[in-house]
């Protein structure tokens, strides 16, 4: 599905800039520029069938500078971080880390079409920022209330099972250094926004 055409007037510079931007925003060396469009990534992907673009096509869109289409794609959000593509890629592209970069860009600009996955990540992050630890019950309950209300009754046996077996803490645990962590994260966000 291609909803945006490459405008010849934009020229190569604009296109290359998006590729560079994605690559530079990725942790470590992304090697995204090395992609040879072989499709090994999509062929190895357990959730490729649910993606609007396979990873290979997404990387072609990045190279073509089609920023809006790339950031609206559900592909990064369907990535399960299984790293099959990463170890199979003949060019050593850090596919999963590139997906993380695209997620964070899309999350920042709210460019995604479906908010289910970004909301889940945001709720997770909010808990971690508040307590320093993940809080499974709070995360799941909030997420289901917002996105899967109809699944809640069916989930009850599992929730009760987890609780009676002592596998679901009712209250979040807070680390002692939560102020220290907050200061670290505040500066990290400041640096990221400034760069």
């Amino acid at each position, binding site marked *: 599905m291609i909803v945006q055409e490459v405008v010849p007037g934009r020229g190569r510079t604009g296109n290359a800039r998006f590729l560079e931007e994605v690559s530079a*925003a990725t*942790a*470590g*060396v992304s090697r995204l520029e090395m992609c040879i469009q072989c499709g090994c990534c999509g062929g190895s992907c*357990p959730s490729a069938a649910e993606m609007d673009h396979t990873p290979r096509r997404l990387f072609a869109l990045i190279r073509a500078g089609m920023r809006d289409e790339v950031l609206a794609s559900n592909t*990064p*959000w*369907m990535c*399960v*971080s*299984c*790293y*099959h593509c*990463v*170890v199979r890629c003949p060019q050593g592209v*850090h596919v999963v880390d590139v997906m*993380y*970069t695209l*997620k*964070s860009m899309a*999350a920042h600009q709210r460019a995604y079409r479906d908010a*289910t*996955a*970004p909301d*889940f*990540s945001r709720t*997770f*992050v909010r808990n*971690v920022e508040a307590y*320093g*630890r*993940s809080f*499974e019950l709070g995360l*799941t309950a909030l*997420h289901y209330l917002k996105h*899967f209300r109809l*699944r809640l009754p*069916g989930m009850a046996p*599992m929730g009760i*099972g*987890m609780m009676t*077996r*002592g*596998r*679901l*803490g009712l209250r979040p*645990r807070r*680390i*002692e*250094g939560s102020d*220290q*962590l907050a200061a*670290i*994260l*505040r*500066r*990290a*966000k400041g*640096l*990221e926004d400034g760069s």
Partner: protein
Amino acid sequence: MSHYLYYPGCSMESSAAAYRESLETVLGPLGIRLEEIDDWNCCGATEYVGISLLPAYALIARNLALAARQADGTRTLVAACSACYLNLAKADHYLQESRTLAANVNSALGAGGLAYRAGSVTVRHLLEVIITDVGLDAVRAAVSRPLSGLRVAPYLGCMVPRPDPDHRWTDHERPRELDLLLAALGAEVVDYPLKTECCGGHMTQISPAIGFELIRRLIAEATRLGADLMVTVCPMCQMNVDAFQGETNRHFGTHYRMPILFYTQLMGLAFGREAREVGIGRELVDARPALARIGLPVPSTAAEETPETKAARIEAAHRRRQALPMPPMPGDAREEGPR
């Protein structure tokens, strides 16, 4: 006693409580002492880095910085959870690879009075420490209740053998470590081709149909191969395969009952500990009928019965009533066993 720094991770305190309990029972026999990092924080799992990169790496790096500060005699940081292990290992790897990332992360850490020099701690997974440092001979020597006759499907999931930034595992897709460990405990190890396939990760929360299909494949294949249970190293995999097995069955109209335990639970049992001490009973798909194969007591509640085992039980009782009084023969008891 070998001494290591230890990062438990959030799930060890809740959904993977059985991993924590069983882990504590095997450390003594293996001669391992784990020293927990004081006031560690969440590793961010696979979520934080999808929202913003630098804060996510700063979050992980606080743990590395605390570990480096606490390092005394050892600089090896052991993680037991797959996502935690990968996040810590990958962060240290990328901090060494990218000076910009290292500078920014340290600037952020500075706001909390911390600093971290990339490479000052070595991140390793508990399973690899057991295989490499303790060794399979020592494991064999600690076994007092061999798991003979128990057919197990070894299931590692993704994040331990991949992407493996420090090249510690025998293979990215067919690693042998877990198979070797389980064989050393005396178990019959199934050659499980899906051993590093995805359990669905957070898909059960985001796109359930994908999650359920990935879980279905895993339990269907383990069932087809005649495994009594699956054995995992990962809290997320355990949670998906175990806790979401009911919903998966409802989704497909199937009736799989494939228990999944942590490798440390089987180690604890093989080292002679009782089921309760290693967290057996915390799983939603009851593993005790399978564990009857190594002589553990089976619960006899009617709720655990499947239609097949119920029919077999009634038929056996009927036959006993009709039969002439005979002395019990070896093998008679098997009729009332789990299968």
